[in-house]
């Protein structure tokens, strides 16, 4: 503070002093962005060629040579800024604003290649990882939803350690369930979904997705589903820069399901029994019982427990901390980072503390702990030779209750009713659900003594590389080699009681007696001892080698060549679960040669030629190698003179088109599909004291013709920057024709007598468009940016060797991949419908009665059966996703928010999610059909799980919600202290408040109590997605 006052005084003194000669004057300062110091920014004296870069702490020192008195601060992907040099002020603190739409935005495109937006012909989107660094989610892919056009993500679960989104680039395009997974490369090394989710975002520099044929063709056989590239941070020369981040957050479920209390539940039980004409009521719902529930006068004899609230905590914590060191000299640069992430689960920890009684010291809660370490080294060995060595490792524990899905148990009406048992008996012993068939001890009892299952996983990556500039052969030529090793190992450790049913008692308040639970069949409880067991679950090793020549040179300031010749080989060994899979441990090998020739003339006419020759040993020798060519053309009309004359404010107006073929070697099963394999079957015994002996059986027929599937991709794009780069727009239309897909033919009669290997016959198409529109500008001292990221795709099954169906509406072909089928809702049966012979009815054991759902009889045979199912709704993965990023910057304050929405998908629930006597009673059940409520939201309640009212047996458009949601997905509000006000010689300091999934609006909640991103028919099983509120501090030294 004193320092600040001093500065103010000095400033006042020099204000009216005349100009001193600028020449020779030394200006120092710091350049930063909203996240902290910015290294590598260029500080140029206006009107001169005098420029210096900032060091790794964002600092610069420039000796003025001209008289303009202005500095221009520029950096790739940031808004250029001019700063006037004030008299007497030799120290300048500049904050740059990110501009993802800037003309010279450079995007990494793989294998060391990077291209500016102006000369790109392909469909590529990227994001600077800084933008998502503050988002409090453990998985990188969760933070990307809504930010990148063409990136479609669905987060199926919120379970700590298993909450990573599934994602697709341009949606799903393959009939093969795993065939739509994009290729994920981290520093050019292949990762899977899980590995990606475990990376600490703090290690990442940028993320790019490659979408069209031209940009993915060099990946050949692996590129058909798009590519996601992650580039990690590297050191910048300078004194060691320490960055410390610490943050802590609070998680809450996005939705807390509401269940009815004992009173209302019992009323609905009675209603259902009355509907079915049943007089033998189940226990605990007599008139006297209901009176007790209403008055609440008998909390032990007539309990009223909301098991969801009793078992779960509403708010739980998570913690994240990182320490980075980077710096180096001209010869050696380093970036070293370590991180800890810890996320607790929503369940109370009955095992160690909660409840106070009977705790056995074993943590039953879900949790996730992750430790990351990375060291990226760059060594300039000689003038031309640089070496790199990257080593990173991740270690993590994922804990969950042993043999218990807590959400599923709570939703499951058959396990517990709200009136089944008190939470704990008056004498502190555990109670049990004495009125249910299973007679389970209460959930808290099961958790307290049930133990845990813990996944322990270690990932290790090492990458060695060299890069030799071959300028003495020809200018611009370089040779690069990389050798990478990655391993994943996971083991599962379980600590539990064998057959854990802890002793539990039914307390009778009338006589104070305690009855020991002997189980449904008198099996009784088993007071087991704790035992631990473990097995290896994952053991994957991957060796990846790449050698490539790259060539980048401009001739005569006009002809720019940018080319690559690549050799790439990869071996993966997967010893996945050696106990089970006989065909596991089969290595898979990949080899590829790729060539890319890029050319542009004055950044005006652009040509990219790509070709890859790839092979995979999953296929027979004759079918192994494939050739994948692609071409991209671009024309930046804005560079034409005539265009500039007409529209001078348009800086970029680029038309581009690409076309090519890429492949996918994703094949079902870890085996060679061309080979027929004989497996071991169950035991059979001969002899008089029969001992089971292994048997051998014939596996599915091999198919020598199995080969990769292919995708012909067309992409048309238009890139525009208008109004002096204030408005930026990228538009893409794409069409994919995916053919030769591996599908198991469904049209071969079963008389064949044997399973078939898949054959390359499936065909689908996928088309859609993407739009990114960003307006960024400064109004006074406020920088603001608002954008829209729109993604739409729609796929279609053209051919999948489907057996021709009995009726045309039963055909899958012609619909979207994974199209749901079901009945058409036509209201509810009336008594007249029931007695009329003309109204179609199902063939259920119990005939339908008034108030049951009435469906359309498509084939008019008077019977509602499978022949009356048709395509309903849409698949479970959204066809349209939208992101609305908004940014505001004012001095040290920055606000960044993202609304994200998904549209055009369907969601349904069955069983424990919604059905009476399977699910807990929910508010929607109170609006069930009764003779007096004939326009309800729910059909007649019934105890029979097989009636037409059951979505398990009769899925229909009544049960399928055409869903959409909009989320306030992320919020990031940060304040950065100015350099001058920093205490303790800190280089920078920043505090931020961030949030994830803050607010959700969705129509799903009108029917189902689940997250709108949950997978269909897992409602009642899926761990709720979380909302996270987070506060953090970042300090630089």
């Amino acid at each position, binding site marked *: 503070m004193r320092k600040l006052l001093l500065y103010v005084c000095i400033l006042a003194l020099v204000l009216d002093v005349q100009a001193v000669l600028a020449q020779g004057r030394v200006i120092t300062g710091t350049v930063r962005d909203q996240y902290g110091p910015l290294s590598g920014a260029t500080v140029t004296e206006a009107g001169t060629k005098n420029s210096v870069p900032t060091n790794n702490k964002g600092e610069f020192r420039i000796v003025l040579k001209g008289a303009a008195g202005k500095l221009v601060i520029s950096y790739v992907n940031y808004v250029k800024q001019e700063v006037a040099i004030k008299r007497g002020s030799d120290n300048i603190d500049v904050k740059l604003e990110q501009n993802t739409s800037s003309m010279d935005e450079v995007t990494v495109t793989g294998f060391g290649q990077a291209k500016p937006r102006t000369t790109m012909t392909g469909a590529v989107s990227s994001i600077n990882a800084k933008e998502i660094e503050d988002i409090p989610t453990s998985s990188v892919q969760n933070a990307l939803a809504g930010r990148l056009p063409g990136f479609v993500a669905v987060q199926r679960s919120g379970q700590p350690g298993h909450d990573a989104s599934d994602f697709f680039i341009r949606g799903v395009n393959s009939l093969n369930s795993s065939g739509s997974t994009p290729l994920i490369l981290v520093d050019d090394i292949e990762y899977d979904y899980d590995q990606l989710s475990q990376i600490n975002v703090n290690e990442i520099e940028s993320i790019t997705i490659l979408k069209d044929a031209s940009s993915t063709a060099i990946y050949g056989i692996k590129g058909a589903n798009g590519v996601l590239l992650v580039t990690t941070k590297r050191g910048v020369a300078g004194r060691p820069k320490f960055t410390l981040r610490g943050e802590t957050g609070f998680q809450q479920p996005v939705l807390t399901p509401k269940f009815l209390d004992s009173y209302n539940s019992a009323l609905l039980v009675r209603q259902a029994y009355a509907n079915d004409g049943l007089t033998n009521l189940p226990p605990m719902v007599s008139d006297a019982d209901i009176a007790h529930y209403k008055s609440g006068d008998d909390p032990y004899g007539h309990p009223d427990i909301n098991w969801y609230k009793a078992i779960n905590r509403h708010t739980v914590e998570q913690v994240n901390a990182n320490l980075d060191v980077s710096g180096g000299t001209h010869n050696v640069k380093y970036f070293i980072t370590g991180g800890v992430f810890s996320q607790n689960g929503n369940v109370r920890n009955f095992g160690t503390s909660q409840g106070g009684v009977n705790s056995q010291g074993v943590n039953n809660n879900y949790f996730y702990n992750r430790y990351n370490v990375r060291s990226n080294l760059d060594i300039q060995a000689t003038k031309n030779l640089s070496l790199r060595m990257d080593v990173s490792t991740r270690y993590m524990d994922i804990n969950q209750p042993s043999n218990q899905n807590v959400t599923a148990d709570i939703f499951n009406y058959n396990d517990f009713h709200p009136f089944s048992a008190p939470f704990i008996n008056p004498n502190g012993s555990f109670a049990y659900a004495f009125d249910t068939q299973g007679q389970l001890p209460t959930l808290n009892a099961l958790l307290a003594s049930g133990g845990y299952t813990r996944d322990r996983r270690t990932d290790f990556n090492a990458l060695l590389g060299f890069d030799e500039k071959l300028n003495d052969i020809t200018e611009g030529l370089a040779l690069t080699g990389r050798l990478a090793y990655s391993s994943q190992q996971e083991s599962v450790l379980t600590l539990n009681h064998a057959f854990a049913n802890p002793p539990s008692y039914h307390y009778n308040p009338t006589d104070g007696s305690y009855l020991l639970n002997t189980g449904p*069949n008198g099996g009784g409880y088993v007071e087991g001892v704790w035992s631990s067991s473990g097995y290896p679950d994952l053991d994957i090793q991957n060796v990846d*080698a790449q050698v490539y020549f790259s060539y980048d040179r401009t001739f005569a300031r006009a002809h720019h060549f940018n080319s690559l010749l690549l050799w790439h080989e990869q071996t993966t060994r997967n010893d996945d679960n050696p106990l089970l899979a006989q065909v596991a441990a089969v290595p898979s090998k990949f080899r590829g040669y790729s060539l890319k020739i890029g050319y542009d003339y004055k950044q005006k006419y652009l040509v990219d030629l790509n070709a890859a020759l790839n092979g995979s040993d999953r296929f027979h020798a004759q079918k192994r190698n494939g050739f994948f060519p692609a071409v991209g053309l671009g024309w930046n009309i804005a560079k034409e003179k005539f265009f500039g004359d007409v529209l001078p404010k348009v800086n970029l107006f680029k038309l581009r088109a690409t076309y090519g073929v890429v492949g996918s070697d994703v094949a079902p099963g870890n085996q060679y599909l061309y080979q027929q394999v004989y497996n071991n079957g169950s035991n059979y015994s*001969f*002899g008089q004291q029969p001992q089971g002996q292994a048997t051998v059986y014939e596996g599915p027929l091999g198919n020598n013709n199995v080969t990769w599937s292919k995708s012909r991709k067309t992409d048309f794009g238009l890139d525009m920057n208008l109004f002096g780069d204030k408005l930026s727009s990228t538009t893409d239309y794409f069409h994919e024709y995916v053919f030769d897909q591996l599908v198991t033919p469904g049209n*071969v009669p079963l008389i064949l007598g044997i399973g078939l290997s898949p054959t390359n016959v499936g065909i689908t198409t996928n088309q859609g468009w993407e739009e990114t529109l960003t307006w960024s500008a400064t109004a006074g001292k406020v920088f603001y940016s608002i954008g829209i990221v729109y993604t739409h795709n729609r796929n279609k099954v053209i051919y999948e060797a489907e057996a021709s169906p*009995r009726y045309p509406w039963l055909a899958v072909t012609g619909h979207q991949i994974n199209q749901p089928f079901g009945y058409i809702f036509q209201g509810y049966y009336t008594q007249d419908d029931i007695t009329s012979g003309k109204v179609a009815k199902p063939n259920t054991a119990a005939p339908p009665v008034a108030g049951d759902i009435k469906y359309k009889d498509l084939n008019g045979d008077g019977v509602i*059966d499978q022949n009356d199912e048709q395509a309903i709704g849409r698949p479970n993965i959204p066809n349209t996703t939208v992101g609305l990023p908004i940014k505001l910057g004012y001095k040290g304050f920055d606000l960044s928010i993202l609304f994200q929405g998904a549209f055009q998908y369907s969601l349904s629930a069955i069983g424990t999610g919604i059905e009476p006597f399977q699910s807990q009673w929910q508010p929607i059940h109170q609006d069930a059909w009764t003779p007096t409520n004939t326009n309800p939201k729910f059909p007649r309640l019934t105890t029979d799980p097989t009636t037409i009212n059951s979505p398990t047996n009769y899925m229909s458009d009544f049960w399928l919600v055409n869903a959409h949601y909009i989320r306030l997905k992320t919020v990031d509000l940060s304040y950065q202290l100015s350099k001058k006000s920093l205490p303790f010689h800190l280089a920078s300091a920043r505090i931020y408040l961030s949030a994830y999934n803050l607010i959700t609006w969705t129509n799903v909640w009108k029917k189902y109590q689940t997250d709108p991103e949950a997978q269909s028919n897992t409602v009642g099983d899926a761990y709720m997605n979380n909302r996270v509120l987070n506060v953090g501090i970042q300090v630089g030294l």
Partner: protein
Amino acid sequence: MRKYCLILGLCIGVMSACQKNYESVPLGQQATLDDVFNTQDSSGQQAILYLSNCYLEALPSGHNRITGDYLDAASDDAVSSSNTVSAVQMIATGQYTAASPNADDDWAYNYNVIRDCNVFIKYIYRVPLILLLPDGRKAIGALRSEARFLRAFTYYRLLQRYGGVPLVGDTLFSITDNVQLPRNSFSDCVNYIVSECNNIKDSLRTAMGVDAGNYGRITREAAMALKTQTLLLAASPLYNGGNIDGSDPLTGYPSFDATRWQAAAQAAQDIMNLGVFKLTPSFYDAFTTQAIPVGSNPEVILWVQSGASESIETKNSPVGYGSAGGGGQTSPSQALVDAFPMSNGLAITNPASGYNPLNPYDNRDPRLAATIFYNGHLWLNRAVQTYDGGLDKPGGTSAETKTGYYMRKFMGPFESVSSSPPVYSNTIHDFPYCRYAEILLDYAEATNEASGPTIAVYGVLDSLRKRAGIDPGTDGMYGLAAGMDQADMRVAIQNERRIELAFEEHRYWDIRRWKIAAQAYNSSPVQGVDIQQFGTGLTYNRINVLTTAFKDPQMYFYPIPYGEVVKNPQMKQNPNW
């Protein structure tokens, strides 16, 4: 120069770190045809294990086979005790279609078994097997014939379910072959199975010539039994004169021919003439003992091997035995209970029988106690309580008997086993697909149809009733009426078959081939008994348990799976499906 050496070195280093080539021979523990039928392995180890899999697939154990229930629980003999809609209930109430088949409809599975047998039949000769049978013959012929038997047995199962089906012979289809085959006629299938049985008979082991380690393998006598079963099926009213589809060769013969009954009788007679088999002295022993040494249990001819276990007891015994466990899976019907005569051999409907409705289980055919748990039946040293609120019918939400009865058959002799807490011990539970008792009944039925109620027919029934423990009476008739005509005898044989072979997967098929299924399912609901205890007295009231349904006549055959008809224009659907 040194620099380029360095770079070259680095490149070579990187490139050689990866394997040079794709695997020329695919790696992994992937057994191929050549490994299984190894031309070098004179012990034929893998090939013999392959044959074991054919056994495993072709001979599914009938115990709790239909998703936990006995197939007989889909007939008029029992219902499932399950609280939910069981698969057998779906069958018994006629809830299945070509598109949603019933749980016993296993078309694809059976054709898979046939192919698996064909692989063995085709390739076993590659193996230079030196193994010999106990009688000195080479074993390879017997093993191959076992596979042919299993294939024929699978066709028999298909024939029962669908009528005539495509016969694929020894063909092993490849992916490019045309498998759009038409169905063979019913008579072709019968002839094929019979000729296979005739052809393989003499190369198989004999029942008495099996060594201990190979106990459970298919024998000559099993082939003769399958031939008998097939001929009996072919002679039965559904196919022989009662074709539901006029002269459609797929669903039977166009007209009646008495010689089919003669052929069936002769086939049974051939087995009886061997003199190898006889009835075990005790009815109980037929199900829980194995032939140690070989031949000591002379009754079972074709059976499914299984290790000793408690599984049948724990799944099916009454629910009230605490720690011993008891799923009470099967609830036998009142009609089955009523089918058992009194211990004097007279039907309970006979006024002279001495049947007392207030004491309905006293003085009954001892097979009743061996087949069914009724109220008061001794078990684990206490009386079974199936009265309302009794230990074995406590009420509440758990599964329990719906009829007041539980199935007793196949269980070990735990009647008076006393221990605390009560427990079972391991017992043999081989599932009998053909017992000598059935051959005798086959003979009696076929002979009665071909030649009327001869003395031999009476003799067969007498022998079964004698073994059962029925009082021969002063007239030595074991309660049978003298001088029955053919129709009376038919009723007597059918009743004897029902009680003797209950729960052995016969009743379900018998009511079909006798063409009485429509009557059995549609004439009345399945009944049970509701027993109330008043003081020390009990009242018995018949209650309806399940209304069954049978679409006549289409349900006499299963539908060909919908997909098969769609994929194959030559595949003709069964009538009315």
